[in-house]
């Protein structure tokens, strides 16, 4: 009889552990806490309009955070992802306004450029075996200089604008930067793109061969290679994935504002990493989740708008973000240790 009792206890512990071992757990608890907090401060925050409002900044950040999360699970960083949203936006607006391209063609050109940059980032990392932190820091600075230099040379100013007058603008805007009315509330269409990207990334991670390879190259690249995983191809594809996400976000923002500053996107790269880490990604790779990164982005969106709704000084936002990052990282580490030591 005692052995039966022991088995039942084991089943219970297994269930708890399986829940705790989910990388998203910390971010879900954090999101609930942040939502509860700002809801108590401001009734507008919890209304449908309020939700649509704070989901908007979460959406563009979320698309990037999900792509960065996949890359981080694969064991690499991309510091050039933020400034690349600026580059792709600048390419789109410059080609459409200065050279009279159709908006769709200009977007396609931006996508091709992004894929090339992502490919080069990946190739440099797998060929040189240098830390991707350094390699992409290099491309980050180069793109930053290029954005400013080329924009100034072409327009004499530090921004390009006037996308509204370009051919094909209305269609592209409706698809990427418009709004959808659900139950009398306007939601930005970017929110749906974000949901789609999250769903796709989750499917890839959990239900595709490539997903298994991403976890493996981040967890132990040599071991993965030894059993025949195409590690270099996997990593290059991940860099091209973040570049594609940067193109999507760059295009969404360019179509929304119809103009792009030459310095746009700079400083965002760390926000993406923060969202991914809050969502349970390990800095050392091999562990994390796409949904977690999305929830990290939700926390960011709620804090960004919540501080305004609550009538506080927005200067406090960064302080809040830093505290959240530390708490989440500590919570994630505790949970993972518990999960791994549960049976030993």
């Amino acid at each position, binding site marked *: 009889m005692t052995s039966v009792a022991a088995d039942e206890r*084991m089943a219970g512990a*297994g269930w708890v552990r*399986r829940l705790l*071992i989910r990388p998203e757990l910390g971010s879900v608890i954090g999101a609930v806490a942040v939502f509860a907090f700002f809801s108590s401060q401001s009734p507008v925050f919890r209304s449908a309009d309020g939700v649509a409002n704070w989901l908007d900044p979460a959406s563009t950040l979320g698309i990037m955070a999900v792509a960065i999360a996949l890359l981080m699970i694969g064991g690499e960083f991309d510091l050039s992802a933020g400034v690349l949203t600026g580059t792709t936006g600048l390419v789109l607006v410059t080609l459409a306004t200065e050279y009279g391209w159709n908006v769709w063609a200009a977007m396609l050109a931006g996508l091709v450029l992004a894929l090339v940059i992502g490919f080069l980032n990946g190739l440099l990392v797998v060929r040189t075996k240098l830390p991707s932190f350094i390699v992409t820091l290099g491309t980050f600075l180069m793109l930053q200089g290029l954005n400013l230099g080329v924009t100034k040379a072409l327009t004499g100013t530090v921004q390009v604008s006037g996308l509204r007058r370009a051919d094909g603008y209305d269609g592209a805007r409706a698809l990427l930067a418009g709004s959808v009315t659900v139950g009398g509330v306007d939601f930005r269409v970017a929110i749906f793109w974000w949901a789609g990207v999250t769903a796709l990334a989750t*499917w890839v991670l*959990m*239900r*595709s*061969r490539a*997903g*298994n*390879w991403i*976890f*493996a190259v981040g*967890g*132990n690249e*040599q*071991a*993965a*290679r*030894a*059993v*025949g*995983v195409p590690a270099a191809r996997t990593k290059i594809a991940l860099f091209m994935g973040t570049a594609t996400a940067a193109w999507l976000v760059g295009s969404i923002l360019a179509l929304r504002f119809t103009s792009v500053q030459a310095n746009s996107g700079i400083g965002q790269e760390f926000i993406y990493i923060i969202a991914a880490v809050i969502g349970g990604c*390990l800095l050392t790779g*091999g*562990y994390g989740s796409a949904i977690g990164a999305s929830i990290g982005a939700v926390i960011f969106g709620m804090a960004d708008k919540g501080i305004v709704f609550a009538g506080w000084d927005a200067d406090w936002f960064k302080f809040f973000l830093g505290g959240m990052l530390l708490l989440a990282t500590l919570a994630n580490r505790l949970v993972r240790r518990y*999960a*791994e*030591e*549960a*049976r*030993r």
Partner: protein
Amino acid sequence: MTPPLLEARDLGKVFGSVIALRDVSMLVRAGEVTCVLGDNGAGKSTLIKILSGVHVQDTGEYLLDGTPVRLGGPREALDRGIATVYQDLAMIPLMSVWRNFFLGSEPVTGRLRRFDVARAKRVAREELRDMGIDIRDVDQPVGTLSGGERQSVAIARAVYFGAKALILDEPTSALGVRQAGVVLRYIARARDRGLGVVFITHNPHHAFPVGDRFLLLNRGTSLGQFDKQDITRDELTSLMAGGAELDELAHELGRDGQPGGVPDSGRPAGGAP
């Protein structure tokens, strides 16, 4: 007689000015265990890296089923039925047992070629049970398994994927006595299933009970390949430790010139066939 599953003839490998391996010959037959013994730096790693397709030999011949081959990489070796289990990189700790089990050879289903997770979990559970490996939950991360369990899962994986030859790189070296015994039992079970096993170790006490043939390496050269009936455990230990060198050491350390308890110290070093 059928040609051996895997045979090396006078293999040599040079890295820059370092001769890592010179004129090493060995063979493995199906259903037999060939042990490769040697101290650190003896060339064991270089040899298995050639056998498993990581390196290509500079001189000599590598034959599979009697046909000379030059392997293009670990993937080609795997496709030809040569599976290698490395000591420290056999498994990925943060990934679950079933994800590790199918890593690199994931079963797919449907038009989208999605990873057949249900099948992967079921097969992993069944295969581990058939090998007599007691793992409660294939969903648990491999990091929570003991060292012996990890090696055992890796061996079960190689057996499942139809390996004809299994190369084990020091599978017992980081393990305690009991855990090492568990792994030796799975090596014997793989052998009984008809696999040819190359078992790399520096412990003659692990090699002797399970081995059919013993290749001794020292400083990149072969001290000879011995069949089990031609060598005793003590001779193996003595050869392994450097034979005459050890005699000298015993002499040096012993008091008043008395040899210090080295077994069978009368045997000459070398003994290449």
